């Protein structure tokens, strides 16, 4: 188990991470999520040992590793750029850490070939230059190089951020299946919420050096603990006073008008959801904009001068155009207040 206790990290006068307390379980796929400059990479680098915290301690299985040198931490890292050594071939890249450990040649060879097979690298690819590989193959080499050392944990710093969208999705799936295959504790850094939601067992959302919420992807999305988390994850409507009063009038539920209120775009309905139609607030709306994406359409409605966004999966039956008048339904329990 990994534990951050009251960890503070400073760059001169700037505090990048403030009083961090975090626990990561054995075999977990744990993601540090947040916008640029929020402290997630700094946290990761302090775990690997590239940065020393100015206060607090980091424990791995109860052992204080806060000031242990990088090479003694038994943590392997996959870098944003993969950091494959351009002057070494694929084989030499994977064997690098084993050579440093002065392992016998035959054993190195066996280990390299075994890990290459596990990450689906063919033996003829082992002699290639790393620059001759595709993005996906490079990622597998970087992972193989990290895993061949049989580390106690694997950390990945935005390894998919330099890739195009379709390759990112493909590699995301590969990464997930590799992690399951090896069962290794994995800490993943990203600013991409979709990546975090699909890959992780648990997520820590960072903002300005502080963890705003730790939870499962479901909890983070549906029970966002703070306004920042709620805004950062997914597409959302900020509800004004007019809309809140209309919902109260239609449903009877009252809201604290001094607080901000949010409603996720997919929680606005154009048809009464048949499972529980009772508590819904029904309102008259007109379509002011329709952005068609194929799989879904993003609508903007106007309700008594207030605007409301909605995402609707295209089922081939209900499609609206600008000017259409209709009833929309909102469940007051779906409104989040902070």
């Amino acid at each position, binding site marked *: 188990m990994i534990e951050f206790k009251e960890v503070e990290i400073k760059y001169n006068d700037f505090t990048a991470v403030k009083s961090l307390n975090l626990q990561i379980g054995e075999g977990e796929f744990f993601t540090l999520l947040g916008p640029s400059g929020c402290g997630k990479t700094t946290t990761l680098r302090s775990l*690997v*040992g*590239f940065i020393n915290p100015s206060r607090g301690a980091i424990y791995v299985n109860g052992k204080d590793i806060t000031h242990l040198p*990088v*090479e003694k931490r038994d*943590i*392997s*890292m996959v*870098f*944003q*750029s993969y*950091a494959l*050594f*351009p*002057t*070494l071939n694929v084989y030499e890249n994977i064997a*690098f*850490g084993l050579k*440093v*450990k002065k392992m016998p040649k035959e054993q190195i060879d066996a280990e390299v070939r075994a890990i290459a097979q596990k990450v689906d690298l063919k033996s003829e690819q082992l002699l290639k230059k790393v620059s001759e590989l595709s993005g996906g193959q490079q990622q597998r080499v970087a992972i193989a*190089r990290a895993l061949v*050392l049989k580390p106690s944990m694997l950390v990945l710093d935005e390894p998919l951020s330099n890739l195009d969208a379709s390759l990112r999705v493909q590699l995301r799936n590969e990464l997930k299946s590799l992690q399951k295959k090896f069962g290794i504790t994995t800490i993943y850094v990203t600013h991409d919420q979709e990546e975090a939601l699909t890959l992780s067992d648990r997520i820590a959302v960072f903002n300005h050096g502080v963890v705003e919420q730790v939870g499962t992807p479901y909890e983070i999305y549906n029970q966002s603990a703070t306004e920042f988390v709620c805004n950062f994850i997914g597409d959302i409507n900020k509800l004004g006073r007019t809309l809140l009063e209309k919902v109260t009038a239609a449903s009877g539920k009252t809201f604290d008008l001094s607080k901000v209120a949010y409603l996720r775009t997919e929680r606005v309905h154009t048809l009464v959801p048949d499972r529980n139609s009772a508590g819904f607030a029904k309102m008259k709306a007109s379509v002011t904009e329709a952005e068609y994406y194929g799989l879904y359409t993003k609508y903007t409605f106007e309700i008594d001068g207030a605007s409301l966004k909605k995402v609707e999966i295209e089922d081939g039956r209900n499609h609206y155009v600008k000017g259409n008048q209709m009833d929309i339904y909102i469940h007051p329990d779906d409104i989040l207040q902070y």
Partner: protein
Amino acid sequence: MTMERIRKYVTLGNIIGLIIGLFLTWFVVAFLVYPNLNLLKAVFWVNGTFSIEPIQKLLHSTRALKSLLNSFILAVSMVVTVNIIGIFLVFVNEYFDIKGSRLLRIGYYTTLVYSGIVLVSGYKFLYGEQGFITKFLSNMFPFFPAGWFHGYWAVIFVMTFACTSNHVLFLTNAIRKIDFQTVEAARNMGASSFYILRRVVLPVLQPTLFAITILLFLTGLGATSAPLIVGGTEFQTITPMILAFSKSPTSRDMAAVLAIFLGAATLILLIFLRKIEKKGNYISVSKVKSEIQKQKIGNKWLNALVHVLAYLLFIVYALPVLLTITFSFTDAYSISTSTLSWSHFTIANYRMLFTEADAYQPYIISIVYSAAAAILVVALSLTVSRFLHKYSNICTTALEYAMLIPWLLPSTLIALGLIITYDTPRWILANNVLTGTMWILMIAYVIVLIPFTLRMLRAAFFAVDSSLEDAAKSLGASTFYTFRRVILPIVLPSTLAILALNFNSHLADYDLTIFLYHPLFKPLGIAIQNATSGQTTADTQALGLVYSVVLMVISTVTLYLVYGRKSKA
């Protein structure tokens, strides 16, 4: 607890780092700071008090003042002549559609391999009183003065054609970066070729031209070989004067004043250059850049005139190279009479180079000096670059600035600083004397190469993705192992290229060598210069030509290895 802390800091890595740090500090103080400060002291500190006596002495010396004036005249003239020729060459090569421009380019690029003392001695051999071209012109035009090639006109002639390398390198690069769509846009709005040239193209090149102009002015001020070899007694400039003054202990202070003056002028102009660089070049804002397409000159008379001038210049550039190569294959009779006939062709001169100790000795000396200096400066700069890359603190910043000192100072001043400082035992060199030994030239060669080498290697180090080092570290590699297996292989190609360029640059050095060489170990530059003096035998002259040809071959091979292969890749 205290012992534990001490143990934590006293690691092998830290001890090695400390030793290297101490060595670098000693090197900087002993060779980059102290000699130059001592030179100032030698001038302004006479008998323990501040004095301006050497300056007054200088102001009373007509010869010295004349040399100062001549240097300025040369610098200003060169700015005009070299810019005219240089800009013309680059536009003929890169901008206008000139027939046979590929052939012309070969001629114009000869200065990249046929330069310095090789060029000056080559020009003297061809244009001198007994020269092939002078004889040819005298035969064609009986009133042509045979002794025309000396003094101001000879120096400006040599310098004009010798100093277009900066245009060939930098202006060509700048013109290739011009976004051709801006030219097309101007044409689309009805602008003529010359209007586009004046209002669109030249303004973009202006910062590069300014920078080249300042470098030209500095080259003119510090010119050494051309005024020494073809300037004669009537056109002496600062550097030959410094050389003359430095030979006598009574006038050494005047040499120092002149060197300081040269240094101050260099410093001021470099500050000015830095300001221009800071303003930056014009950066294209277009998203889709297109390469320049050669422009046809619409007016047919003008087109013809430009073609004629372009080919005349080609002859001026190519002829000395061709004749140097040709005469290097002729016997003493041909060389002494500047005549060519089939019966006098021979390879004896080349055989002499490889068989006679006297002939190949300058080569061996220069190769040893250049190779040793190139290796030493690369080793030193690698160490410093690694320090700068790894640590960023006040000490490394100070080290970096100190290492760049030679960039601000003319080589004449560096040479004089070393001569004046180390002609007596100094504690900083364990009471050894350097002046008059063969080591002083080696040290000077290393010093002048530091700024270029360090800037290039530093750039190579900083181009290495820092995550590679982190990755190696996280895989358990030590600092030294990471350097050896990861960083060094990446910077090695640049390092070897710099090594080759450094080796090349000193092989036929003259400007620094003339001040510091050991009389028993004459390097090539001196041997070539000796071959051009009036009293030499035809055999020595032949050897001078052979030296020049072999040097050209080495330079061509080096440039091909460094740039040619890179551009193919």
